[in-house]
């Protein structure tokens, strides 16, 4: 029963971590406006955290510049499972106005799976809230899946295995290797 409660609360308290991967700042400002009194995403339990370790939903904005790609992968690797990746704006999906630039290493799908994509340049706050709510639902699903794979609460090893499968499904199996690499690098 406790596990069921946890599943339910997954949806009710998704914490957001925002990665700016070379965004023009338009999307960032719109994301912040979602938390203001006018749209007040906090009423759904959304909360902007400062560290990837506590994040449930990772919001990526910007066209993934060469400079940011390494940091992006390392930051994504630090987020504990279950997690959702939301791409914010048109930039992370297609490169948008920056498409074709020598400094762009996008799209985002090259490096991770994307659960929800909120389009627009910039997306409307309403669309962002809707996208985040969708991501919260996916989060609950993922937690259920994880529980099925691992039986009880996921131990780190099980979570890593699940993650590996998920990544393989999305054709980005190398991300797991990168994760280990990043941790070792931090160690050294």
């Amino acid at each position, binding site marked *: 029963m406790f596990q069921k409660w946890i599943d*339910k609360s997954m949806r009710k308290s998704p914490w957001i971590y925002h990665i700016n991967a070379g965004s023009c700042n338009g999307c960032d400002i719109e994301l912040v406006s979602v938390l203001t009194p006018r749209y007040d995403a906090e009423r759904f339990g959304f909360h902007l955290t400062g560290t990837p*370790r506590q994040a449930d939903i990772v919001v990526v904005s910007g066209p993934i510049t060469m400079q940011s790609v390494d940091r992006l992968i390392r930051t994504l690797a630090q987020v504990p499972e279950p997690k959702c990746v939301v791409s914010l704006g048109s930039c992370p999906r297609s490169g948008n106005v920056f498409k074709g630039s020598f400094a762009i290493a996008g799209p985002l799908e090259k490096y991770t799976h994307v659960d929800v994509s909120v389009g627009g340049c910039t997306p409307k706050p309403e669309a962002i809230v809707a996208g985040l709510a969708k991501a919260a639902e996916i989060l609950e699903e993922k937690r259920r899946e994880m529980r099925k794979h691992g039986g009880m609460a996921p131990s780190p090893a099980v979570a890593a295995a699940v993650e590996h499968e998920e990544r393989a499904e999305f054709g980005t199996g190398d991300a797991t290797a990168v994760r280990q690499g990043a941790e070792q690098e931090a160690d050294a």
Partner: protein
Amino acid sequence: MQILIQLFHILVFPGLLFDVAMGVLLMGLNNKLVARMQNRVGPPILQPWYDFLKCCGKETIIPARAKRAVFLGSPYLGFVLLISVSMFIPFAGFIPVTMGSDLVVILYLLTFVSVCEILGAASSGSPFAGVGLSREMVAMISYELPFVLVILTVARAVGADQPSGAVFSLEGILAYQEMNGPLLFSPAAIPAAIAMLFVIPCETGMHPFDIAEAETEICEGMLAEYSGTPLAMYRLTHMVKVYTMSSLFVAMFLGNRFTGIVPVDILIGILLCIAVMFISAALPHAVCARLKVEQVFHFYWTVVTGFALAGLLLVWAGV
């Protein structure tokens, strides 16, 4: 039978379960009230509980550089210490552990709760946690001094005509208030009460004074590397601390037995805790932006310590 009653007091009321429930209620109400004051709808009142459960369901990552045992152990140790603090604090006339129910013991144990948090942060090996823990120490130095002064004031006010000159036992304080009415109503204790109201948000790390957890500047500071169940324990500790501090205020300044009918007393106790939380935590949160490190230090060592000292002098002069 005696043991069963004792166990009930320790585990259910007013011990562990009641502490957690009140912590969730106070924290949830705090979020809601702040949201209403900022013209927002605000999260549901049970939001802290959802946060806690969610954190339990996440993967626990132990950073490669962390000292495993300390990193994982200190959140639990902190929580246990905090619960043992709340065992000494009377609520509606019940004290789970009557032995050594003493303000000095409470002061020591509360410091240890913060020390546990610092230990965990220090063992995580993150530079952000390093900055956070140094800030937490500054906060501790800031609020400990007025806190000690307030405790001295209360002890003196209660024990002025006792042979020892001061009463530190909470039972003694309660008995005194039962005879002479709440301490808050005597003018000499009012500055001390004001100082105590300022100590509560800093001790619990509530918003304008949460320099150690400034999420926008130093990535959640001390909690930067925590995830999963240890993080959940930290959040729970934080919630229960809000309740512990406000019930300590109620016990110290307002007394416990208001009508003599237990359910009514419990209800009044809960309402008073909420009122204390509202004045000391929610109002500054809604009004004020996060202070800088030196501002916190400066504020506590001038204004708040000033209030506490004034209270102490008034009480010592026998006003």
